[in-house]
């Protein structure tokens, strides 16, 4: 039974449990969190098994209601989808373990809708990942978007405004996507991705098809915060509650990137499209600008979560850059960076959450040396994740950038190579700024400080509880493991994802 319904399992698990939470939660609000945790815990082995099966036996398709595509809706679990499903489930599991305390501190009376929405968000993500139908993808996109707007809206005082802006721009994005599907549907008569991949080469020269593609890519670009369509992101991520931003920042934009890959590389043939409209090049150049812009803006931020949000813009730029290069190595780098960035950003946002819970703020200017003694493990995780963001070996970040650089050289795009490397240096500046704050004495008057520091002052530990610390450390440690395992991943998994058109 599990075998036969493999592509459906993960989204359905999330969906069913998301529906159960309000049903049971109306009597027993305390059940919300265990149910949510049960959902992610159950989904990890399913996703892992799915990935295993797909790697061993090739893509698995599932026709809903038994109606063969293109008549019915089809779910397709291919290496890319199953891999990202596993990433989503693992990261969300860790974040959710961490979230229990954060959520009970930040909004204790909203557990039922909160966890239900979290599961709906994940159901949306996993549905997007496994569907093989453009319109079905839109439906799941809307589920995840709506849940995302809601989750962003509970945070600090500004969060409803950020969520509203997110909603308006998100609706523009999904609207564009829907309109794009419309154009393509008129000309092809199909919504199924595999079917469209066969039809589109015949009709690629038609203006509506090309416009449809442009509209879809623009819409997806808005959802994944591709520069210059990123402006909703910094506010949304920085003012949302810590538990939410740790969930949305690593996963939300990545799923957007997945849609971009799906549409641009699997539904359309990138080489054929490029001859007519230089979409991939435009994405690559915009992403390159985004890398620099995001990094520079991150440099100017005074608040950790905001800095991380801008850094997300830059990191999405890396992913877009790899995709825009439209060659296998760049693609490999982009997919690997999706994985790595999910881990890095999750770890960093968890650290920011730890800080907010224990210190009450995450302003960079107010951090000082005591933090490294009070929260040694959280800060160690911060350092590892920062090293990975910068792209230093042996952390995971080095390897995705390595493939991106290789991709840039393969395509002789020297500008992109320079941008990738320069972005890494900018990352180094803004992360070492934080690391310095945390580990070194505050600069002002530090000479006498150093003298007074001769006696080791006893600082009481303020490290977070184990349920919050463990996920942080697992994510940070995962960065080292992923770095060492990157080649294995590339050979055994990512190699299988490379779209035929590249």
């Amino acid at each position, binding site marked *: 039974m599990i075998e036969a319904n493999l592509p459906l399992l993960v989204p359905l698990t999330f*969906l069913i449990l*998301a*529906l159960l939470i*309000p049903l049971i939660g109306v009597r027993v609000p305390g059940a919300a969190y265990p149910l949510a945790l049960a959902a992610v815990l159950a989904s990890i082995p399913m996703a892992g098994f799915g990935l295993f099966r797909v790697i061993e036996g090739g893509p698995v398709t599932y026709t*809903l*209601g038994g*109606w063969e595509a*293109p*008549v*019915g*809706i089809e779910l397709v679990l291919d290496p890319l989808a199953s891999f990202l499903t596993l990433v989503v489930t693992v990261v969300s599991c860790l974040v959710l373990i961490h979230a229990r305390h954060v959520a009970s501190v930040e909004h204790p*009376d*909203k557990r*039922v*809708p*909160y966890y*239900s*929405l979290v599961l*709906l968000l994940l*159901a949306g993500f996993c*549905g997007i990942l496994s569907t093989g139908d453009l*319109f*079905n993808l839109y*439906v*799941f996109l*809307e*589920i995840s978007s*709506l*849940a995302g*707007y*809601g*989750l962003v*809206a*509970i945070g600090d005082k500004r969060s*409803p405004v950020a969520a509203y802006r997110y909603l308006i721009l998100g609706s523009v994005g999904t609207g564009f996507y829907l309109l794009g599907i419309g*154009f393509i*549907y*008129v*000309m*092809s*008569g*199909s*919504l199924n991705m595999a*079917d469209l991949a*066969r*039809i589109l080469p*015949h*009709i690629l020269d*038609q*203006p*509506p*098809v*090309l*416009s*449809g593609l*442009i*509209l879809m890519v623009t819409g997806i670009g808005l959802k994944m915060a591709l520069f210059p369509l990123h402006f909703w992101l910094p506010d949304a991520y920085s003012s949302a509650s810590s538990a939410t931003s740790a969930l949305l920042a690593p996963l939300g934009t990545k799923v957007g990137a997945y849609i971009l890959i799906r549409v641009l590389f699997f539904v359309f043939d990138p080489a054929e499209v490029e001859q007519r409209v230089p979409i991939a090049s435009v994405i690559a150049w915009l992403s390159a600008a985004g890398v620099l812009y995001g990094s520079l803006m991150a440099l100017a931020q005074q608040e950790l979560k905001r800095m991380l949000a801008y850094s997300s813009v830059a990191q999405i730029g890396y992913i877009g850059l790899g995709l825009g290069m439209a060659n296998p190595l760049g693609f490999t780098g982009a997919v690997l960076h999706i994985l790595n960035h999910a881990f890095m950003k999750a770890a960093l946002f968890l650290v920011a959450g730890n800080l907010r819970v224990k210190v009450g703020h995450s302003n960079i200017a107010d951090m000082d040396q005591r933090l490294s003694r009070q929260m040694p493990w959280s800060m160690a995780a911060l350092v590892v994740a920062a090293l990975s963001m910068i792209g230093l070996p042996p952390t995971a970040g080095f390897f995705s950038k390595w493939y991106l650089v290789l991709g840039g050289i393969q395509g002789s795009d020297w500008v992109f190579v320079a941008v990738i490397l320069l972005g890494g240096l900018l990352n180094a500046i803004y992360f070492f700024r934080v690391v310095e704050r945390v580990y070194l004495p505050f600069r002002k008057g530090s000479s006498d400080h150093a003298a007074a520091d001769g006696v080791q002052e006893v600082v009481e530990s303020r490290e977070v509880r184990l349920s919050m610390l463990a996920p942080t450390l697992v994510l940070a440690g995962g960065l080292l493991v992923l770095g060492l395992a990157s080649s294995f991943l590339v050979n055994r998994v990512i190699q299988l994802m490379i779209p035929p058109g590249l």
Partner: protein
Amino acid sequence: MRKISLIALVLFGALLLYASSGLPGHGDPDGPSHRERSRAGSPVAAAHYIRHAQGDAASPNIVTVVLADYRGFDTLGETVVVLTAGLVCYLILRRSP
């Protein structure tokens, strides 16, 4: 910001005009989405629905059959969207009991 919006609007409008130049005429019964077979030879869903809906689900209303049967999963998603909206309003607005 306003200038950028205007530029975006102009670009969007131009794109729509460009697209509409290639669309089949309104109500053109020969549009690709109305045919029986697509350019690649696969069956086109719409014609299949019209032909088989009543036989498949004993219901003359093709839209209902498509909605609830052929593309029932979409509809499940749509119901969940509604529920999501309800939960979001609960999350944002409802005071603690």
